[in-house]
């Protein structure tokens, strides 16, 4: 109801905007039938607007507040009270990136690239190793606690209830999957004997992962179509089309 109320209060500009959105949506969909000039026009306009939006955004969100306002506080409208000349250094590095357009001086662009690579490698490597390798390895092994029964310590067996049996099964499955998949990517020995068996099992795990990935991709793409259909039906047609053509 709220959405319907909002649609009934649309301004002329918003109605024109909805019609443009609908027209561009249908123009892009027309590619499904075959490539055509209407699709090409919509595609080119999209690319142009995206590039323009990006330039304006970087100017207003980065160049002005992070560089020019700090160098010239008098143009910042009160956002900056005093000048900060340290920003000359990143500003100069940024300008050096533009030397890529001049073949004679393009070697200068390697300095800002080296700075960025060094900074992000230094900040990123420890954090990513911790988050993606150490924590993940621990999480792979931790479920094996569920096997504190006869398989490992000879202590009381895994609980007889279904949940703990499943947890134990999952733990073994997870570890088997990790080891076998890793063995598939071990190329220093021929994939024969035990390595041949584990790498073959690894392929099966990979296939299951690809299948899950494909299923999720289908879900995502159908969701995008649903979003467009919702827009065409709810926002555009019920909001503007019916009124325009005199329907209820």
């Amino acid at each position, binding site marked *: 109801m709220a959405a319907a109320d909002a649609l009934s209060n649309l301004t002329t500009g918003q109605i024109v905007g909805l019609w443009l959105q609908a027209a561009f949506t249908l123009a892009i969909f027309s590619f499904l039938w075959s490539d055509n000039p209407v699709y090409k026009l919509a595609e080119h306009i999209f690319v142009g607007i995206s590039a323009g939006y990006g330039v304006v955004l970087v100017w207003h969100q980065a160049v002005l507040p992070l560089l020019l306002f700090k160098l010239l506080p008098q143009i910042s409208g009160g956002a900056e009270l005093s000048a900060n000349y340290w920003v000359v250094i990143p500003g100069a590095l940024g300008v050096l990136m533009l030397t890529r357009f001049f073949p004679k001086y393009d070697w200068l662009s390697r300095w800002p690239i080296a700075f960025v690579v060094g900074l992000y490698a230094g900040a*990123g490597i420890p954090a990513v190793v911790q988050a993606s390798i150490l924590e993940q390895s*621990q999480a792979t092994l931790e479920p094996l606690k569920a096997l504190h029964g006869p398989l490992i310590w000879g202590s009381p067996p895994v609980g007889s209830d279904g949940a703990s049996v499943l947890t134990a099964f999952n733990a073994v499955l997870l570890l088997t999957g990790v080891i076998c998949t890793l063995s598939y990517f071990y190329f220093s020995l021929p994939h024969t004997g035990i390595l041949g068996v584990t790498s073959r099992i690894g392929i099966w795990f990979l296939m299951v992962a690809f299948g899950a990935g494909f299923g999720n991709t289908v879900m*995502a793409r159908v969701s995008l179509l*649903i979003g467009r259909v919702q827009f065409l039906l709810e926002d555009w047609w019920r909001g503007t089309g019916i009124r325009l053509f005199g329907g209820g």
Partner: protein
Amino acid sequence: MERLLRIDRRVIFVLIFAAVLVPFLANLKLKPGAPSPSTRDVYDFIGKLPAGAAIMLAFDYGPASMPELQPMAAAICRHAFRRDLRVICLALSPQGFLLADRVLAETGPQEGAAYGEDYVNLGFKPGYTAVVLNMGQSIPGVYSQDTKGTPVERLPVMRGIRNYSDIALIVDLASSNTPATWVAFAHERFKVPVAAGITAVMATEYYPFYQSKQLVGLLNGLKGAAEYEYLIENPDRGAMGMASQSIAHAVIIVFVILGNVGYFGARRRRRVTR
């Protein structure tokens, strides 16, 4: 059999389009089953936060991912406002802060929340790794003002917010690899809980982070959004799309089966001919 392999792709497009369209025209509603544990974990975590706690909502996606992520954002905002939580929105994606404005303009007034007191949109900052890292030192140092140009120290919603130690939960709504950045630089380094709402394409990449408890919960695509809407008893756009989603999936499964039948049938026929 080989005819099955020569179905015009446009026939498939039309049938998928019809499968998505008809449930809307027929007003068909299909409730998703029990919510996934990963969705319920996000709901439970937010549900247990004390009134007045602050959650940070990162809008790290653009309009292309709106159908999946915008319903999630709306549902989480509604839940937070009903629980009297403070919602601090920001964006690491250039277009995200505009989408945050849309969600807040709709859900805030409907749930009785006020801009500046209960929620704020801090906007977009470029260089997402540096932004995430620096907020661990000082959030007002990175975002000195909101999208309207109001200094954050004048906003009641930002009172007492210095860094991640004052944030009860970060929810990253993402269509790219930003959840990994939040996990690596905010969760691992500053120990702030992180949850993620992601497009379904990314799901297989991020379930390991949920399994390892580096993410407190995970909303997966439109299904996750619909599940959250049902959990807060506010079925909306996510829930409306589930009937279309289910029927479209059934159509795709039929085509996958037909394709395989055609492929194996044609292969067998070729062998017999030889």
